[in-house]
C-alpha cells in the first residue's frame, strides 16, 4: 500500500513537472491552423514543419553553439573560481569572513535591470560587445554568489579532522583542496554546475543587451526574435523550446548516473 502511494506520488510529480512541456511538444507538432483549436489535444495531422522552420529561417545551429559555449565556459569558470573561494572561506584563515560572504551575496541583490546599463558601458568600453567573452564574464560574476554560498556550505560539512589529518601527512592546502575536498563535495559541485549551466543557458536580459548578431546571440534572445510585430509563431516557439530543453535533460541525466550514484556517505568517514 505504502509503495503504491509512493509510486503514485512519483507519477504525479512527473506529470506536474513535465506536463506543460509535453503540451509544448504536442503543440510543436501541430500545423499552424490547429494551434488555437479547441479542444487543445493531439493533432490529427502532425507535422515536423516547425522543426524544419526554426533551423531554416534562423541560424539556430550557431545560436545553440553560442549558448553551449557560453554556458560551459561560465560553468567551468564559476566552479573553479567559486570552489576555490569557498574552500578558502570554509577551511582556511580569512579575516572578515562574514563580511566577504555578505559582499558576495550583495552582488546578487540588485535588480538586473539596474545594472545592465552601466555594465553595457563597461562592455562597450572594453570592445567586447557581441562576443562570447562579454557574456561569460557577466554570467560568471553573477553566478558566483550562488556557487560560493553553496560550495562553502558543502565544504563546511566536511569534518575539519580530514583537513588536519591531511596537513599532518604533509599535503599543501592546494593539494587538499584538489585531491580531497573536491571529490568529497561532489553533490555540491554537481548541483552548482547544473544550476549555473541552466542559469547561463536561459539568461535573457544581458544576452539581449550585449549581443547584436548571430555571432554571439544565445538561445533566449533568438527565441525572442521569432515573433514578428503581431504574429507569434507558437509552433516554432514550441519546437525551439523542445530542441533546447531535451539536450539539457540528457546532460543532467548522464551526469547524475556517473557521479552522484557512486557516492556514499561512507567516504566521509574514510
Amino acid at each position, binding site marked *: 500500500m505504502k509503495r503504491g502511494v509512493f509510486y503514485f506520488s512519483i507519477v504525479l510529480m512527473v506529470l506536474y513537472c513535465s506536463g506543460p512541456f509535453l503540451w509544448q511538444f504536442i503543440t510543436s507538432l501541430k500545423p499552424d491552423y490547429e494551434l488555437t483549436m479547441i479542444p487543445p489535444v493531439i493533432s490529427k495531422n502532425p507535422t515536423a514543419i516547425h522543426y524544419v522552420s526554426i533551423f531554416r529561417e534562423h541560424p539556430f545551429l550557431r545560436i545553440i553553439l553560442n549558448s553551449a559555449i557560453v554556458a560551459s*565556459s561560465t560553468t567551468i569558470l564559476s566552479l*573553479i573560481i567559486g570552489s576555490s573561494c569557498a574552500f578558502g572561506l570554509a577551511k582556511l584563515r580569512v579575516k572578515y569572513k562574514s563580511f566577504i560572504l555578505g559582499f558576495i551575496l550583495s552582488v546578487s541583490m540588485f535588480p538586473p535591470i539596474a545594472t545592465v*546599463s552601466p555594465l553595457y558601458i563597461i562592455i*562597450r568600453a572594453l570592445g567586447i560587445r557581441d562576443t562570447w*567573452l562579454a557574456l561569460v564574464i557577466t554570467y560568471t560574476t553573477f553566478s558566483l554568489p550562488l556557487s560560493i554560498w553553496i560550495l562553502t556550505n558543502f565544504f563546511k560539512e566536511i569534518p575539519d579532522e580530514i583537513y588536519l589529518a591531511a596537513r599532518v601527512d604533509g599535503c599543501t592546502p592546494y593539494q587538499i583542496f584538489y585531491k580531497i575536498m573536491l571529490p568529497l563535495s561532489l553533490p555540491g559541485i554537481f548541483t552548482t554546475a547544473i544550476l549555473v549551466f541552466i542559469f547561463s543557458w536561459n539568461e535573457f536580459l544581458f544576452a539581449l543587451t550585449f549581443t*547584436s548578431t548571430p555571432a*554571439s546571440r544565445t538561445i533566449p534572445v533568438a527565441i525572442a526574435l521569432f*515573433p514578428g*510585430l503581431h504574429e*507569434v509563431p507558437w509552433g516554432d516557439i514550441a519546437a525551439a523550446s523542445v530542441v533546447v530543453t531535451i539536450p539539457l535533460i540528457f546532460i543532467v541525466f548522464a551526469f547524475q548516473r556517473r557521479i552522484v550514484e557512486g557516492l556514499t556517505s561512507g567516504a566521509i568517514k574514510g
Partner: protein
Amino acid sequence: MLNGATGIKALLLLFCYLIIGCTPSNKDNSAFTVIVFKHGKIAGDPEHFKNVLKRFEEENPGIIIKDEILPASTDEQHQFYVINLEGKSSDFDVMSMDVIWVPEFARAGWLRDVSHLFSKGERSEFFPGPMKAVTYHNKIYAIPWYIDAGLLYYRKDLLQKYGLSPPKTWQELIRTAQYIMPKEPGLYGFIWQGKQYEGLVCNVLEYFWSNGGGILEDTKVVIDSDENIYSLRFMRNMIIKFRVTPYLVTTAIEESTRHIFGNGKALFMRNWPYAWNIFEKEGSPVKGKVGVTLLPSFLEGMSASTLGGWQLGINVYSKHPEAAEKLIKFLTSPEAQKTLALTVGYKPTRKSLYKDKDLLREQPFIASLYEVFMKAKPRPVSPYYMMITQVMQPEFSAALSGIKTPEEALRSARKQIEHIMKGKND
C-alpha cells in the same frame, strides 16, 4: 602565500582562449562605408527585404548595409535604443522607430535633423498623421516608413444574414451586436485590446477622439473631460452592461483577438490591418467573410483611428550621416515603399501609392485603406508622451476592471499628468 598557482595558471589560459577566440568578426573594410541599420523583425520572408537593401547597395556603390534585427517587442527595442543612445553609441546609424518615440528621442537630442531631406512640397506627399508625429518644433526628425491604424473588422456574412449594415456609431454597434448575439450562440459581440499596455491606450483614444475629447490641448491636460468620462464608462459598459464584450478583453492583445475573430468566434473586432492577410489565407475559417471599415464614432463624422507605424531616423552619433541619409531616403522612396507593400505588405506612408495601378491590382486591400490612414491621428506628440502613457495605462486598466470608476481613474490620471508636465516628476 599564493596557493593554487596551477589553478590560476589554468584560469589565465582560459581567459586567453576566450579573448582570442571571441573577438567580433567585423572586418571593417576601410574602402567601404558600412551603415548599420537596426530594426525590428521585418514581416514575411526576409529575402524580400534583403533584395531591397541589395538594390540600394547597387545604386550606391561604396556603401554596405549591415542590418541587425531587434526583437519585435516595442519595449525591448525602446530599451535597446535608450541604453545605447544614452551611452552615445555609434554602433548603429539608422534606426526604425515606433511612432511614439520620435518626439522623445528628438528632445533628447538623439536624432539627426532630417528636414533638409524633404524637397519643397514633399511633406504633403505623406499622410498628415505620420508627418505630425515626426515633426518636433517645426523640424523633422524621422521619415515615416510604413503606417498602421485601427480598423473595425466585421463579419459581413453575418451582417448580411440579418440584413444589417456595418455600424457608423458605437451605439449602433452595440445594438447590432445585441441583436445578433442571441441568435448565434457562442459568438462574442465585439472584441478589442484591453490588456494593460500601449495597445489599450490606442483603443481608448479612438473612443475619446470620436467623442470630441482628447488628452492634451496645447499644454492643458483635458483627459478628465466629461466626454472622456462618458467614453471610458462606455467601454466598461460594453463588458458589464451591454455585455457585448467578454471579460477576457482585459488581457487581450492583438494576437489573442485576432485568433478569436479568425476562428469565427466574434462579430466585430478592432485591430490593425495586419490581420486581414491572415484571415484571407487558405484554410482560414473566415476567408471571404470579413469586411473592414472605419471605426464607429460617438459624434457623427468623428471616426478616429489611432496612428501606428514605424519611422526611419538617424542616430545623431552616427559616423556616416550622409550615407545614412541616403539609406532612409531610399527606403522611403515611392519605389521602395511600393516594393515593400507588394512583397511584405507594409502599408506605404506616401499617399500617391494608393492610386498606383499595380498596388490596386495586387493588394486591393491596402489601397482601400486610404481613407482610414488619412484620418489616423497620432497620440500626443510630446516628449512627455512616454511618461504620460505610463500613467494612462494603469488608470484605463483600472477603469475597465472596475477597480476605479471612470471619473476616479481619469481624475487621477489628470493629476499625475499635470505633475509630469510641470516637470516635477521625480
